């Protein structure tokens, strides 16, 4: 019943919108989960496109992030989805392509301006078909309050020991919460915790690909150790971190009550606006001095074409533009922290964003370990990783038990070719 009424609402909405559009114009609708970006799309990105492409009007119509997948799937099934579909990376979008709901973009002008690594998140397993134009990636690391660091005479940590000494120093001082992170929303613990520091231990792509190939298991040292490190974090989180939500953590940090925020680069925009202090950032610390550092440089947003779109030609024009240098520069600067993936070198204005981006030169990049291939079944590895990371931080599940549970879950459905 729910599905039916949802479909009916969508149909009604679509009918209303198409009726309202001017007849001579082609109107493109973009489905997205980036509700935060409405203003940027409407004030900067869309006007820039419409200026050079008369006759095409673009509407940006996002859904709340947690509901996006469900709403999008329902709309696509009902045939009422917009012309352009913002693509989640890896399996979620691959499933759409496999269901013929989004189409191949191999022949799109401009698609060759992306490296195969950039396209990997939206390319079939055999590497032959790309079905979304890569828009942006996000990089993980730690953002800190530089004023607090200066006040307490602290400097950016390079190794784990330095990192924990730093946390201890802030805790001893007692005026600030060392680290702003809560577990109630779960994904924070996994995305900003485990996936942030983890690549250092499983050696980035080497470990990830070995896991996908079945040559490593989540119970191996490289995959359990990050949970052990994560467990040590719990001493340095705020009071009541178990019921602290993600917006709570953001507020705690931007109000200057916490010193360090385990982050993704997507925070840069909001923090630059809201924080009244100087911001700094450092990459995930390494085990011992001189080790190679690893960062999670995760392709996050792509844009695909709805297979049933009636404005396919106009939509392809828009997609081509998304692949252009103009878009890359516009987007990276409008949304600092979302780094364009094309080969064009976009010039960035935001200092913090530049810093995050500079780690690409010093460290090895990898993507989130659970995003490709190993989260296709039930139980879902990504979702279970949220749960396990939160449990470890809450102290209700030892790292080894959590790792074993995840591997057992994976073993139930995932049989990699040996």
């Amino acid at each position, binding site marked *: 019943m729910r599905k039916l009424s949802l479909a009916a609402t969508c149909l009604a909405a679509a009918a209303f919108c198409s009726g309202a559009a001017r007849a001579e114009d082609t109107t493109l609708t973009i489905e997205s989960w980036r509700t935060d970006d409405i203003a940027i799309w409407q004030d900067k990105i869309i006007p820039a496109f419409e200026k050079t492409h008369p006759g095409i009007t673009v509407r940006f119509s996002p859904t709340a992030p947690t509901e996006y997948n469900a709403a999008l799937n329902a709309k696509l099934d009902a045939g009422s989805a917009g012309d352009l579909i913002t693509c989640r990376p890896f*399996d979620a979008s691959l499933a759409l392509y496999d269901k013929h709901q989004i189409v191949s973009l191999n022949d799109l002008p401009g698609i060759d301006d992306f490296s195969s690594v950039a396209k990997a998140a939206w390319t079939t397993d055999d590497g032959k078909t790309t079905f979304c134009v890569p828009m942006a990636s996000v990089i993980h690391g730690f953002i800190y309050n530089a004023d607090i660091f200066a006040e307490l005479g602290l400097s950016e940590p390079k190794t784990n020991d330095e990192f924990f000494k730093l946390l201890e120093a802030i805790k001893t001082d007692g005026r600030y919460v060392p680290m702003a992170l809560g577990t109630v929303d779960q994904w924070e613990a996994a995305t900003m915790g485990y996936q942030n520091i983890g690549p250092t231990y499983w050696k980035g792509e080497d470990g990830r690909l070995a896991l996908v190939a079945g040559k490593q298991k989540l119970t191996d040292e490289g995959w359990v150790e990050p949970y052990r490190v994560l467990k040590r974090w719990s001493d340095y989180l*705020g009071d009541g971190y178990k019921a602290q939500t993600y917006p709570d953590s953001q*507020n705690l940090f931007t109000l200057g009550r916490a010193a360090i925020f385990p982050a993704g680069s997507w925070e840069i925009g909001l923090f630059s606006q809201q924080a009244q202090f100087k911001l700094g950032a450092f990459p995930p610390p390494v085990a011992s001095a001189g080790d190679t550092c690893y960062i999670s440089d995760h392709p996050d947003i792509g844009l695909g074409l709805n297979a049933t779109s009636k404005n396919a030609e106009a939509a392809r024009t828009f997609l081509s533009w998304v692949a252009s240098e103009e878009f890359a520069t516009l987007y990276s600067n409008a949304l600092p922290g979302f780094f364009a993936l094309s080969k064009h070198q976009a010039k960035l204005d935001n200092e913090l964003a530049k810093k995050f981006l500079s780690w690409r030169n010093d460290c090895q990049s990898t993507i989130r370990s659970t*995003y490709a291939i190993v989260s296709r079944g*039930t139980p879902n590895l990504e979702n279970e990783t949220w749960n396990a990371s939160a449990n470890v931080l809450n102290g209700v599940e030892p790292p080894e038990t959590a790792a074993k549970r995840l591997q057992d879950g994976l073993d139930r459905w995932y049989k990699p070719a040996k």
Partner: protein
Amino acid sequence: MSSAKLNRWPSPRWHILVFLAPALSVYTALMVIPLALTLRQSLYNGVDGTLAFVGFENFSKLLFDPTWATSFWNALSNNLVFFVIHMALQNPIGIALAALLANPKLRLARFYRTAIFVPTILSFVVVGFVWKLILSPLWGVAPSMLKAIGLGWLFAPWLGREDSALIALSLISVWQFVGMPMILIYAALLSIPDEVLEAAECDGITGWSQFFKIKLPLILPTIGIASILTFVGNFNAFDLVYVSQGAQAGPNYSTDLLGTFLYRTFFGFQLQLGDTYMGATIASMMFLLILFGVCTYLFFVQRRLQRYQF
């Protein structure tokens, strides 16, 4: 003779059909058919990309395969706890409040009645959000209020702890919906004729014993209805958990109800893709559970309830 024939074969009452038709067709289109389709869907599954009839395989998977069964039984037991807390608190408190409100000596009865009933008409989203703020260990008023009366040590991040999150949510839900049984029972209490109560008073039955011996038996059928509404509402519950704990019903699935489990399965969540067949199976299980509960009530309780006509 012809008039006798007419009496025996009255003309069909078409107007009944005509007047029922709109409601009936809407109800059939929006409730009956989708329900039947859901039940049918639970017997199918996508095998190698094609639709295949699998009989009760989905159900056995849900009940016995550890991948699904762990979540299912966990959600079901949480649902039972949720229901038991409601039954233990919401209805007794509702009855007590109704009894107090029905007391003619109570001043400002209308104000209390409205104040207690208002949360019922609030959206789950508002209630979940407000309570999350109140209970927030960082900015909530709960910790500071407890501190002010010297009970600061009592505070814990209740919504973030496995042992307390479900209870906290149940209490929030009780707070929100206590107005429902209150209003129903209040109406029932008001409908008790004064003669009955006067007669009781003549026999020397007053105060508490009047409530337990005269009023309570008379409002039992209403309490039954309130209970069954609570049961159906609790086993369909979803919104409050979704709003305050997210679709993964944390911490560690301790607040996972059948509703949130259904949502995660049917629509998918984050990287989990939606599985409409298993989703339909869970929905069918919910339907069967509620059907079973309601039927049990109707056969074993409702039939034995005495009704008094005045």
